């Protein structure tokens, strides 16, 4: 009995999300006479989900670990700017596209580690530390970019990351790989278990001998790194670096994570849920545009649908409780 509820619990909870996604697709198919279900459109949805998806995977970790990172969007912007400066591009021309990638990843990682150090060792509340980083990274990006959009001209980079692989865009593959790695990391490794422990009861984790400060540092570093990966994807997709890239991604990512079923208070996280959450939001926007909905109406509908999806999940969860007795 207990194994049954252990198995069916998460499955049913995911069930609510899957149902929400399926309903959205049904609406999409019903209202757009074939334009929704085309391969091209599905690819569009996946491509749009990819960047925010990667960032959301990182966010899942930091939230599961009891924190929050409001700076992901602006760190992503900063990383795109830094990785597309003229000097980076010249170096990339000389040494290879990996220079750009490395720059973006290192910028993301470093910003994340600064966040982590402030939260873990400076005991600055995560909300404040990362809000400060949000402001600072955006400012720094503006200074570096001189408020220009920096266009990426390094063909090897564009060839690799704007290309297709087995019919899917490269950035979709990156999302798939990051999501799979994230799932594995959270569910199958000691790092993941520590994350859950630190988020669930930091004092208990500490007294059990887990180095919670160092782990917290790693968590923010990881999230920063995903923002760096997101920056690479953004550079590929828009062929430009800009300090405005990633604006409000923090809210989108947190929304996807929480709608997916990760506890905002920490201690429980689900990568599958996050992926579903991201797909739901991307599909929603797509269906709206396919129906040529006015942007104000879109906003209202989006609000209503988010709430409906969560209520649906609630309902599934209560059914789960009912069936397991």
């Amino acid at each position, binding site marked *: 009995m207990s194994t049954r509820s252990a198995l069916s619990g998460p499955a049913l909870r995911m069930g609510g999300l899957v149902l929400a996604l399926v309903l959205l697709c049904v609406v999409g198919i019903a209202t757009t006479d074939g334009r929704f279900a085309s391969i091209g459109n599905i690819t569009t949805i996946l491509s749009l989900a990819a960047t925010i998806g990667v960032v959301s995977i990182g966010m899942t970790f930091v939230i599961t670990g009891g924190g929050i990172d409001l700076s992901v969007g602006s760190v992503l912007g900063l990383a795109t700017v830094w990785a597309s400066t003229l000097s980076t591009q010249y170096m990339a021309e000389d040494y290879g596209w990996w220079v750009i990638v490395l720059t973006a990843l290192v910028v993301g990682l470093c910003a994340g580690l600064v966040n982590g150090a402030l939260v873990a060792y400076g005991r600055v509340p995560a909300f404040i530390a990362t809000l400060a980083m949000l402001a600072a990274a955006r400012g720094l990006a503006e200074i570096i970019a001189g408020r220009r*959009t920096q266009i990426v001209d390094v063909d090897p980079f564009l060839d690799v990351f704007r290309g297709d692989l087995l019919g899917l865009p490269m950035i979709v593959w990156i999302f798939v790989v990051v999501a799979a790695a994230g799932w594995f990391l959270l569910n199958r490794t000691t790092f993941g278990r520590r994350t859950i422990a630190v988020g669930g009861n930091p004092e208990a984790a500490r007294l059990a001998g887990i180095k919670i400060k160092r782990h917290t540092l790693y968590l923010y570093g990881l999230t920063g790194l995903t923002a760096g990966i997101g920056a690479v994807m953004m550079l590929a*997709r*828009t062929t430009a670096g800009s300090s*405005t890239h990633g604006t409000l991604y923090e809210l989108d990512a947190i929304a996807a994570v929480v709608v997916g079923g990760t506890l905002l208070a920490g201690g429980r996280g689900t990568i599958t849920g996050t992926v579903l959450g991201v797909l739901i939001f991307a599909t929603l926007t*797509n269906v709206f*545009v*396919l129906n040529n909905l006015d942007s104000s109406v879109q906003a209202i509908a989006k609000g209503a649908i988010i709430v409906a999806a969560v209520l649906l999940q609630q309902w599934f969860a209560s059914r789960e409780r009912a069936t397991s007795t």
Partner: protein
Amino acid sequence: GCTSNEPRETEDTATGPVTVTENDEPGDEVVIGFSAPAADHGWMGAITSAAQAEADKYEDVTLQVAEGTNDVNVQISQVEGFINEGVDAIVLLPFDGAALTEVALEAMEAGIPVINVDREFTSPFAARTTVLGDNYGMGVSAGTYICERLGDNPDAVVAEIAGIDSLPLTQDRSDGFKDALDDCGLDVDARVAADFTVEGGEEQTANLLSAEPQIDAIWNHDDDQGVGVLAAIENAGRDEFFMVGGAGSINMMEEIQSGESVVEATVIYPSTQAADGVKLARLIAQNKTVGDLASIGVPRTVQLHAPVVTADNVEEYLSVGFES
């Protein structure tokens, strides 16, 4: 076909051809307060940079630049700050013209001339001089161009990629566009709003292209987000339509110049408005008059021209394009 972002040697080309008049002779020292929305995109960034560059040309001008902000409350307090300080003139590009009207009135009442840039106040007494772009006219120009190209085909699919929908200026542009299309029997078949950002341009355009398998023309309100729009078009491998831009960035002009791009035209929305504002503020504060006009004093309203840039005349306008 990506454009390059090699640095231009002459930074000040962005402010256009310089006509030296006796007005440029140093006069009384003036302090000019400047406040504009957040420089969160290229055009707005160019506005501020151009204003600063213009001020730097005059040794008698000190420009006090307040933090760019999209919060009218903060912007009001910035103007209040200028009044407290007793600056000699204020150049104000309000986030929302209506919301800043009262505080501008207060400044005027305190004897500080206000030069209103781009987004118009609701009271004629709130500004000594108004330098206006022409948002409605921009829409009309874009619509008219599209009408000329597609006028004979009433079934043509026209798409519009707007900026931030909650801004009145977006509404003005859309209205102008719609009215112009109406005149030739066309309408807007698909419309998205892309937040004036590269990323928004990419995302919204990707969806738009999915939604409309066959498009004849696109008007994109803003050349900054145009970088993203073009990326999305390229991602989707589409080229059956032509596109008209907005604002007039160098990128887009180079696209037009190349002749291989879907971008055929762009409608100029001068990023030098605030620089004009600074120049006029200086003249007003020093009690000088505008040259080349017979009348005395600085005019009440200056509305800037919003021409369409095409392959035919792009050479002419490259110099006033801004770096997005």
